[in-house]
């Protein structure tokens, strides 16, 4: 349950945005920042904890991808 608390999600959001700014290609950088912002905004009203956990896991995987590729 701790993984899907509000603070954790916000930390994840900040970490993803920070990592995305490291892309050296303009198009990738802008896409990553925009997509992350829009995805978190779109899912901000999700209430079901299972769904929240799924989304958080996916975000963690994507954070790993950005870390490796940026």
């Amino acid at each position: 349950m701790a993984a899907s608390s509000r603070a954790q999600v916000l930390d994840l959001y900040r970490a993803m945005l920070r990592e995305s700014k490291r892309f050296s290609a303009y198009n990738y950088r802008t896409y990553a920042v925009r997509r992350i912002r829009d995805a978190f905004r779109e899912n901000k009203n999700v209430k079901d904890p299972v769904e929240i956990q799924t989304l958080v896991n996916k975000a963690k995987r994507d954070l790993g991808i950005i870390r490796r590729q940026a």
Partner: protein
Amino acid sequence: MPLRAPVQTVTFGQKGLHLLWLHVPSKRLCPLEPSFLRYHLNINSTPSAGTLSPSPLPPFTACQVSGVVFFPLRFDPSIPYTYLTSSQIFPSALWMPCVHSCLRSYLATPFHFLSVGDHAPQSAVPADTAAAPEAGPVLRPLYMDVQATTPLDPRVLDAMLPYLINYYGNPHSRTHAYGWESEAAMERARQQVASLIGADPREIIFTSGATESNNIAIKGVARFYRLRKKHLITTQTEHKCVLDSCRSLEAEGFQVTYLPVQKSGIIDLKELEAAIQPDTSLVSVMTVNNEIGVKQPIAEIGRICSSRKVYFHTDAAQAVGKIPLDVNDMKIDLMSISGHKIYGPKGVGAIYIRRRPRVRVEALQSGGGQERGMRSGTVPTPLVVGLGAACEVAQQEMEYDHKRISKLSERLIQNIMKSLPDVVMNGDPEHHYPGCINLSFAYVEGESLLMALKDVALSSGSACTSASLEPSYVLRAIGTDEDLAHSSIRFGIGRFTTEEEVDYTVEKCIQHVKRLREMSPLWEMVQDGIDLKSIKWTQH
């Protein structure tokens, strides 16, 4: 006090670096103050010497021990540098290690997949650069040609890399773990491709691209049924590979009907029905045209073909992953998929061949019987894993991308059309994929407009035909006038296109079209109210 600053140019690869160093006699001056350096080096943007200027100092490395500063400068002849020079030779043992470390740190940019070896390559969009531009990074044009090819999505690359580095086994090796894990990855990719189009994984065959898929579909089906069925139907706006396959089949004795398209680019369904004969084996119509972006009524064509018991093939290279496609709803029997149009790798594609009812295809490539005997040859695991990942990403992002691309497309068209008169959009505005916009600018030559828009990567037709001087056959098929066909430009908007890029393109396009029209005598005549069609051009 006098500073000795020898200047030496070191060429490393294609980068010419000026290594400029100052020997500071007294260590009291370390750490070296940028303003001090600026003063003594006279790095100004104005020719007057000796003034402190706010111009940014290129990064330098200071060797604190010997008081030597290494200044890697890329020599830019437009900036007036004045150097204090001296012919003094320093003992190399002192400064060579510093030179090496300076070179190493300057040149050791981390390897980014898309790095061109310059620091932070940026596009020509000024809105993104935070500070004043550094003396160095090469600006590359904006990419607005997504119909030709698309950049690799980082998620796709991430999925491919393990199979390029560690898991390099041949998926057809049955006896060891390398083969098993590659085969598992290949089957996973097959499932990902199949779920995007609503098919069964057993119906997907991996090929080297949409061209090969089209060849297999058309030649394979035609040749298998050649004893009883000798007729094929296709359209005049198909991709070159489809038209060329049909032409080679004609040489083998088949008959091909090339259906004309209406002015909107869409075929007439009545004509299609009339063209189907009892000995027709295949109808081939592409889903989204790569030059004008027109969407054909695939569901209706599928219905017609299945009722007349004719196989239906569609080249969906530009459509897969961008618009929702279901092979069962649309009654498609064969479909070609291209990897590099959906943010996947180049050199891979797939063909969907229906199993229920079974479509029989004669194999074009003989070999060890891989891919159900229909396409022999080792399946390239990293590429198909990339294709699978691209399909999965496309399925997740389809709605978001479509909404965004539609918005950007609207923006581009509206802004161009409201600022420029006499601009025609080729293709039906309603049944149209928003990411492919083909505009004809009257009284402007297309090639010169493309050359003028040198900061934007655009094209005036399909990449396959861009080498020839003829106007595109697709535009001729939809009935555009010769002169409008010559002045058409195709704008491509994709997942990674930004609003700033679109705005920049629009602004430059308007500016250059206006400039080119000013120079055009035809435009002058039109402004004076002369009807160009009524002019009798005399021959000398």
